[in-house]
């Protein structure tokens, strides 16, 4: 699958990187450019003595560059992709050099496509492993319970003395509790405490509400955990996930769970940076199944995001959903391929239907925060500095007040009476991702 220039533009981390990369997307600037069946690579002179080596896996998209840039993808990756898109013939078919081959093999292996020689498993070994697994589970449950008991005392003490004292608490007050929860193998709960610590206490009314939301959500989770055995398995998994149990992609791939084969559109992408961890959330929409999916990629300063997905990308794939209440998070099981059909989106006609859907989702999973939707919108209106998306029955939903102005203006310009708007309902506001009209999806 060859990426178009628009796909590459969507991949760029910022406009400046894109502009610079366009200037580098000239054959003469590269010392080496080559390709194989699986990928492309090149060498370009940078500020270091040795030229930078840029390597890209095309399907699914992945890249690596030896330059020191902290932007992902860097300008060299963008330039090589643009050059490949505009002048494919300049890339000579070559045998993959050892380092490129190793890197590509490793990526394939990571996706679980290369069968690794499995050890012979005797019934004794299986039994021993199961026992060890059970022991670990029991130990973890004890740890978590002790952490929850401590957090229970901490929260009750906080609420007894009043949350108005929060701004005057030293960092140690939060850090100690968060560290205790990490020790108790409940990093999810520790994150709630860190969120309390990071509140902007200068915004008086706002932090009151935010603190109460965090405290409420945390205590709800703790209460639910005490009653976890009486819950259905998907809800048990949801509760455990939020507390800090991680769900294994490997186990999901190895399971016999049936995937959803569909043509998927990446309706939007959100990147969050928290300390050194970069989280990329890709919101997908299945064209036939008419359901959303969330693919999460993680990266760090030293391990770039595995960005095989780009906003606006339309492809065919089989997705496996994690077994949680109101499942959204999924992984790609099968290779990405071109879509089987033309892009069309079936959107809801009014906000009332979407409100009902959201209520059902909350009933299934009360902790749900983000709810992707497609809406047939007839109008966009601004009133008292707030902007609303209006359906044909004049029901309105407010756009997030923090939504970037440039994107908002683009939305106002591109929108017409027959537009379908894709976006996310989050914290009572709507965050638009893109607009669909005339079989074309335009990212905002």
């Amino acid at each position, binding site marked *: 699958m060859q990426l178009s220039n628009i796909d590459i533009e969507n991949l760029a981390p910022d406009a400046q990187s894109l502009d610079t990369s366009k200037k580098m997307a000239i054959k003469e600037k590269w010392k080496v450019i080559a390709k194989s069946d699986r990928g492309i690579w090149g060498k370009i002179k940078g500020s270091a003595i040795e030229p930078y080596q840029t390597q890209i896996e095309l399907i699914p998209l992945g890249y690596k560059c030896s330059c020191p840039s902290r932007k992902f993808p860097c300008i060299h990756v963008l330039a090589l992709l643009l050059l490949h898109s505009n002048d494919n013939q300049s890339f000579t078919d070559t045998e993959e050099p050892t380092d490129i081959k190793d890197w590509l093999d490793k990526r394939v292996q990571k996706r679980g496509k290369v069968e690794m020689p499995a050890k012979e498993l005797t019934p004794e070994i299986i039994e021993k492993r199961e026992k060890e697994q059970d022991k670990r589970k029991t130990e973890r449950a004890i740890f978590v319970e002790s952490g929850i008991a401590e957090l229970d005392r901490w929260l009750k003490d906080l609420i007894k003395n009043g949350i108005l004292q929060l701004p005057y608490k030293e960092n140690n007050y939060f850090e100690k509790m968060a560290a205790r929860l990490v020790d108790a193998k409940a990093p999810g709960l520790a994150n709630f405490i860190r969120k309390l610590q990071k509140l902007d206490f200068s915004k008086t009314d706002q932090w009151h509400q935010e603190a109460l939301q965090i405290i409420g959500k945390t205590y709800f989770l703790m209460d639910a955990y005490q009653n976890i055995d009486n819950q259905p398995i998907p809800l048990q998994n949801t509760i455990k996930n939020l507390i800090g149990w991680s769900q294994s992609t490997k186990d999901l791939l190895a399971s016999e769970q049936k995937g959803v084969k569909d043509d998927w559109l990446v309706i939007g992408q959100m990147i969050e940076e928290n300390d050194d961890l970069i989280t990329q959330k890709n919101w997908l929409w299945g064209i036939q199944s008419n359901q959303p999916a969330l693919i999460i990629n993680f990266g760090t300063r030293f391990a770039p995001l595995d960005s095989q997905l780009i906003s606006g990308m339309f492809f065919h794939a089989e997705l496996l959903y994690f077994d949680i209440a109101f499942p959204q998070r999924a992984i790609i099981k099968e290779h990405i391929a071109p879509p089987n059909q033309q892009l069309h989106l079936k959107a809801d006609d009014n906000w009332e239907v979407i409100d009902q859907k959201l209520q059902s989702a909350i009933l299934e999973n009360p902790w749900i925060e983000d709810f992707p939707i497609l809406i047939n919108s007839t109008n966009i209106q601004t009133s008292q500095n707030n902007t609303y998306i209006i359906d044909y029955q*004049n029901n309105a939903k407010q756009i997030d007040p923090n939504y970037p102005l440039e994107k908002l203006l683009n939305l106002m310009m591109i929108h017409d009476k027959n537009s379908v708007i894709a976006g996310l309902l989050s914290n009572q506001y709507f965050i638009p991702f893109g607009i669909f009209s005339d079989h074309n999806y335009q990212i905002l």
Partner: protein
Amino acid sequence: MNKTIENIALLGTSRKPFLMGELPEQIQKSLINFSENDVETSLLRAIYLHLYFQKSGNKSFKLALQNNDHEEHENKTICHSNLIYCYQKIKELPTLNYLYFVEIWLDRLIKNDWILPNNLVVTILKQHENLNSEIKQKTINILGKKAATILPYFPTYQTSTNWLEIWKFGKVTERKIAFLKIRNNDLNAAYSLLDADFFNEPLSFQKLIIESILSNFTFADVAFFEKMYEYNFKYLPKEKSIHKECRYLIASKLLQYDNSILHRQTVEKLQPYFSENWLLKSVKFNLPNEEDSFWNEENMDKTYGIELKNMDIGLFHSKPKYWLSHFIQNLPLEYWNNALKKIASIQSAILPEMKHLLLLSMEKKRLSFYLIF
């Protein structure tokens, strides 16, 4: 968040009792189902139950539609896709070349009376935001009716703002900005606006304008302030506090200018309180301990808008000292210099309390003058 729950959570259950009966009925019913019910647990549960109900009940609402008739009435043609492709290429050029070619491109569109497609409007407006006014004007000329509606979001394109219109029909803060803009360009024009209908405006708006003039006060403003002092903010037996505040602001400023009537009258009134000791070659200011015909509450309120409720008894000890501090703050330093004649003589003659007052007042004004004491 429900106010009862929020207030208890903010102050804490140790300070504010948690009464189940004050909670919304649905939350009360849900809380009964829990066996363990100590106060803190119940409050924490009430918080999450309320959040859950709030989240589930969050619905869209009806909005009265405005008329968006620009879409139906667009009578200009959108430029051909070849020209868009051409622009994409121009965009990749270095700045100098970009300026040259984009102008040719803009002229082409203007000549044919073509407009930009909607999906390119924001990009081009943003791109030309900081370019010269000629290019900005040409960019405005290739916008359709819908695009023109978003132009106010790009302030650098507002080349000829009609401040007079904004003064007449704008919101309060916009009108204040408009007044300052007009005042910066033409002081007389600004005051003729105020002459026309300023005193029919709400008092809060009049105060806002007075404060904005004070932030940039000049000698030329004295006449207008005297007029306001004489006719609009003179003492009324039943006056609003904002009326008094305006009198205080105006009188304080007039005291600072020796050409103002109020300054001259005040200086005359203060003169009898200075006495010279020829023997010691010193000047003394005799501040009365009791109220008299000048130093009294009624006069200070009527003439200067000074209210005693702001007085800190710990700092000023008596009312006349508090009033004197106001005059020290607002009458020019030259006046005090001349009145006390020789600064050196003040050192021995000045009352210790007055020294204290001077220090307090000067400190307020952040002047280093007090060092002389």
